[in-house]
């Protein structure tokens, strides 16, 4: 069962050199309080999987600015100039993946699948070194699963069992990332009582969540 911990305890679980998935899209659905605490703690040499680099000084961008990220695996980094600067100085490695491939590889990682086949990226530099399989006359790339040591996700309502309900467009990558890491830390905008999220409305089941941090937005 998910355990409610302080934000300091939560970021203490992340070690130097860890691979960390961070949910969110341009900061929307980033676990902002956990990120702030991780910046304060200064954990280094992280490999971060996050869709984007957000905007300067917002969400995941703070970890990039602080120099704690060694490698960023993302789909789009064009709206945070800091990413380009750090790439040019060699401080940051960036690997770009198509967004659907990024998501589905993480889904594979969390769903016990050995990979998936997609036409996305065929004939482009994304295909370099990848196995191509021809099925019914169409060429597909074999894309392999992605997993992490820790996933940092964010939900609007999280109950004491770790069941998550997301508001608006914040579901994005949080849903797949919650399944694909050894340790899953979920920041709750609001920690709620059991039953407050109707069973039909639970999006991420509490069995995926190890630790809950109260974001204190209630």
């Amino acid at each position: 069962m998910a355990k409610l911990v302080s934000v300091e305890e939560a970021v203490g679980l992340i070690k130097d050199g860890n691979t960390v998935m961070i949910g969110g899209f341009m900061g929307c659905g980033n676990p902002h309080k956990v990120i702030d605490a991780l910046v304060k703690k200064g954990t280094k040499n992280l490999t971060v999987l996050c869709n984007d680099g957000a905007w300067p000084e917002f969400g995941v961008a703070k970890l990039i600015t602080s120099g704690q990220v060694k490698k960023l695996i993302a789909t789009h980094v064009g709206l945070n100039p800091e990413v380009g600067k750090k790439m040019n100085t060699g401080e940051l490695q960036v690997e770009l993946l198509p967004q659907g491939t990024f998501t589905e590889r993480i889904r594979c990682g969390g769903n016990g699948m050995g990979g998936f086949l997609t036409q996305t990226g065929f004939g482009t530099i994304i295909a370099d070194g990848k196995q191509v399989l021809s099925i019914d006359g169409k060429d597909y790339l074999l894309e392999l699963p992605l997993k992490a040591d820790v996933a940092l996700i964010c939900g609007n309502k999280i109950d004491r069992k770790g069941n998550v309900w997301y508001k608006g467009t914040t579901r994005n990558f949080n849903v797949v990332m919650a399944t694909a890491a050894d340790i899953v830390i979920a920041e709750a905008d609001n920690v709620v009582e059991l039953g407050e999220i109707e069973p039909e409305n639970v999006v991420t089941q509490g069995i995926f969540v190890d630790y809950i941090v109260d974001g204190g937005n209630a």
Partner: protein
Amino acid sequence: MEDVKGFIAARVAEELKDGDVVSLGIGLPTQVENYLPEGVVITLLSENGIVGAGAKPSADDASSYVVDAGGQPASILIGGSFVDSAVSFGIIRGGHVDVSVLGALEVDEEGNLSNWIIPGKKFPGMGGAMDLVIGAKKVIIAMEHTNKGTPKILKKCTLPFTAVKAVDMIVTEMGLMVVTDKGIELLEYNPEFTLEQIQAATEAQLIISPNLKKMAAGQ
């Protein structure tokens, strides 16, 4: 022409049919929504998680919880729904998007598209573009015909591909073109330009349609 982008967007809008599921890229393609013909209602997909996105909200109505694929405040229409990224890209790769409208750095006569990286200069990333152009039933490139005079419609793209043989149609301020097995065919031209001027702004050899028409956006 005063409003080049609006002119292009208006012509693209004429291609959309009532009931289409549509994805509009950042920038010029976003404007297509403003020119939908009367009676045409589309379902707008925002690949970060909205099926049935609405108009840009006023500052008062904007919520930090609802953004579009550019990270800007967005809205959702009644009857719309929020999806996670795995579902969103299942919709996209699965062929459930009727039309994807995007910009391009380069497009060539085989329908190859380059729009995500300029090696050594710009490294923004592909975001959802590689999936959209592979998955959508129809891919329309909406862009200015040249980059300040330098052709963008080429014999062969010079920049890394976003996708190969993926583009169906190109709409610019000069004309409307389709990609065929034989090359790029000009179906409509803007009478503000001569055919010679249009060809001069295009590196690929244009095939002039036997049924060539004047471009009639928004009329």
